[in-house]
């Protein structure tokens, strides 16, 4: 409200929420970072391809998908602003497309994330072990630290990782967002330290690399070539869609503040704009110039060749990928405390993904409870902590179960189609909602910001996401080969497991609906639009 508007207002209390726009942005950033943080360049060997326009194709794909994602980002701001809700990924499709689609969309999102907690717990423990490995390279401590990722240590640390995330989530929302933001800031400080490490380490990297490993970076590249890497490989259709598919799914998270929009303080449109556009821009900055700097600083062929060796052989330098803390330590070993801090920040950056996404999922299950999609008691908010504690306990339990499955070798996130299929509706619905909203919820449509652009952006969203999703997400992640039977393809790609989860969601929805109707709850009227005229 402007000062002039205040003159004409009667004094009264306004809506008070717990998350500021900045904290909502850090909430998104915490969701984005995940495993990508400390391993910014370490994954690139998975997608080896030559340079295009002097850039690695990965960066160009990040730029293209990132720019297209601004369409999605603006749409999230537009359709969330008229009805800010906790659990908006469920609530908004439920109110606009119907309760079935709202439930199925969020059910699929929930199941795309739950196994990730188990996986990320393992990744956090692994990153911790690698951090100690880096310290042992500069003789600060003595290794080996392999026991950390073996029983029983890995079990203890992994479970603690999930329990600590759960405890952080259980803090009162105000404190939770503050702690999460502080840790996200710390992780970003780690990134800045890494940039410094790259800049000052460039002149000495080559000589130090030879000093530690006994062979030069040229030899490193030759070893990679001997093991099948082609540094001059051009971008092929298959490598293009592989990269597209990867970037499409790592970019997610910038829009998650929409699902805590019911908790954003003050002007919701402003809060969502700052948090969503801000975190997407952070992603672009962190993925593109940062990765470019590391690749340029230490040499494109050196870094990608190293990464290739890690993913495809067991002769990677130090047995490690080119993680940020390691390459900085090689560059300027005497400044190891700084790179250690960057490494610790990287471990936190990885771990933060768990408490951030736990709240993201928590709010969706909370919204189910409010709408009687699950027993209402699940949505009970603790009177002192102001958090739906039962859901966090359930999430912690599920996280531990999937950590156990990760350790024993079966985590559904490793299936090619698991995340791809479960994220499908959340990528496509942002395009459909604008097209149907005017007819189905004219009352909400009236309050959409930048209304003239709403439907055109929805059409643009569908125009880019559907082909990219089908070609890169589905075909690119799980190509079928002639020697493979359809059944074995469906099993090994996780198609069957994913379909089982989706069908279970459909059965649960209709069972709950029938149960509610039997109890006299007129289910369809819970969200029925009353004519506003």
């Amino acid at each position: 409200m402007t000062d002039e508007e205040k003159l004409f207002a009667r004094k009264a209390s306004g809506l008070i929420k717990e998350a500021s726009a900045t904290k909502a942005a850090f909430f998104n950033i915490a969701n984005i970072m995940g495993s990508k943080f400390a391993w910014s360049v370490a994954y690139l060997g998975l997608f080896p391809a030559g340079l295009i326009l002097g850039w690695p194709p990965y960066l160009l794909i990040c730029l293209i998908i990132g720019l297209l994602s601004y369409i999605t980002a603006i749409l999230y701001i537009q359709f969330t602003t008229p009805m800010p809700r906790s659990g908006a990924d469920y609530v908004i499709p439920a109110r606009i497309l119907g309760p079935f689609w709202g439930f199925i969309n969020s059910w699929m999102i929930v199941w795309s994330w739950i196994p990730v907690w188990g996986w990320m717990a393992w990744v956090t423990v692994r990153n911790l072990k690698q951090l100690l490995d880096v310290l042992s390279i500069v003789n600060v401590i003595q290794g080996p630290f392999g026991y950390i990722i073996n029983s029983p240590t890995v079990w203890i640390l992994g479970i603690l990782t999930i329990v600590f995330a759960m405890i952080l989530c259980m803090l009162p929302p105000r404190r939770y967002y503050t702690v999460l933001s502080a840790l996200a800031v710390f992780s970003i400080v780690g990134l800045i330290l890494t940039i410094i490490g790259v800049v000052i380490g460039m002149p000495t990297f080559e000589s130090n690399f030879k000093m530690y490993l006994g062979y030069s970076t040229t030899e490193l590249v030759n070893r990679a070539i001997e093991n099948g890497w082609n540094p001059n490989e051009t971008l092929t259709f298959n490598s293009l869609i592989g990269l597209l598919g990867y970037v499409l799914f790592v970019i997610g998270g910038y829009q998650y503040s929409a699902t805590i929009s019911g908790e954003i303080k003050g002007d919701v449109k402003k809060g969502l704009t700052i948090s969503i556009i801000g975190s997407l821009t952070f992603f672009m900055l962190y993925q593109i110039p940062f990765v470019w700097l590391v690749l340029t600083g230490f040499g494109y062929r050196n870094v990608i060749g190293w990464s290739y060796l890690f993913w495809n052989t067991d002769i990677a330098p130090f047995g490690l990928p080119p993680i940020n803390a390691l390459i900085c330590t090689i560059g300027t070993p005497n400044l190891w405390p700084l790179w250690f801090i960057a490494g610790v920040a990287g471990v936190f950056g990885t771990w933060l993904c768990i408490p951030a996404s736990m709240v993201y999922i928590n709010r969706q299950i909370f919204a189910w409870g409010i709408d009687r999609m699950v027993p209402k008691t699940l949505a009970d908010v603790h009177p002192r902590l102001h958090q739906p504690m039962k859901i966090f306990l359930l999430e912690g339990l599920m996280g531990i179960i999937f950590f156990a499955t990760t350790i024993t070798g079966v985590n559904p996130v490793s299936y090619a189609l698991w995340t791809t299929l479960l994220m499908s509706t959340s990528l496509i619905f942002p395009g459909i909602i604008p097209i149907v909203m005017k007819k189905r919820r004219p009352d909400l449509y009236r309050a959409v910001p930048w209304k003239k652009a709403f439907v055109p952006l929805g059409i643009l969203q569908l125009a880019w996401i559907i082909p990219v999703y089908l070609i890169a997400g589905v075909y690119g992640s799980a190509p079928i080969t002639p020697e493979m039977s359809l059944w074995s393809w469906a099993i090994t790609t996780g198609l069957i497991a994913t379909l089982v989860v989706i069908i279970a969601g459909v059965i649960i929805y209709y069972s709950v609906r029938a149960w509610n109707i039997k109890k006299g709850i007129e289910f369809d009227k819970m969200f029925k639009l009353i004519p506003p005229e």
Partner: protein
Amino acid sequence: MIHTRIYYCCDIHGSETCFRKILNAVKYNIYNASVVIVSGDLTGKMIVPIVKNTNGTFKTKFLGSEILIKSNNQLNEVAKQISDCGYYPYIATVNEVEEIKENRKRFAELFSNLVVKRIEEWIQLAEERLKGKHVKFFMVPGNDDDPRIAKILEHSNVIAYPENKVVTLDDFHEMISIGATNITPWRTYGEFTEEELAKKIDDLTSKVRNISNCVFNFHCPPFDSGLDLAPKLNEEFQPIIVGGEILKVPVGSTAVRQAIEKYQPKLGLFGHIHESPGDVYIGRTLCLNPGSEYSEGILRGYIIDVDKEKILRYYRVEG
């Protein structure tokens, strides 16, 4: 099983959209409720001046945007948008706007007149749309509401005005209503000390035949019930910030809380604190606060089915 269905909503704060939705919910039998309770606050919080320019155009500032209005159609459209959000559009010259800014008495009079005018229009609309509907339709003001609206509500043919009365909802249930609240920092129209509130409640409950089946329709939620969390304010009415965040405290009424604990009615219907919606049991009493999103035009409410013995079911609805 014979039961009574109650539809309860509150804090629509002058929103044309929300009020029309309430009437349409009855007109089209959307919730099939036989009792509809619309509790305060009923009236809006702000006048939005639309300034008439000398060249025949108009301009206004609304929701952070400056709008230039070039035609009567556009003027009507903007005025409707303002009313839909619960505010009062007011067309005036630049000089008149300046005068209203300077003269708070003039502002208060204008505000009161606009409030009364809208309530009168609402009652007229209700009489058209509720005609022939066999629904008990109650409207009770809240602490924010100008006392002048009470008289308008009292004289309606289709709307019952239950403030400070014992009214019957069906053969088994009575309801007592108090739109006033405990003291707020804003010193609004309907505020009493906790002692005064306790006395009002005790006076009303003494007239109830069966307190265990009674419905307490009080605007102010019970203290520390989870339905009453609001920002703690300093002496300048600014929220107190601790660690960069707004400090929230329970602001409900201790008198209401004690009354619920003492009398244990079947149902408690509350509002007042928009940001603290929810449902909670205090002993055997189900306490509900639907919260409010009036400015977005979202009508939040509860459906409650009750029979002679108990609450059969309740669930939140969003129209």
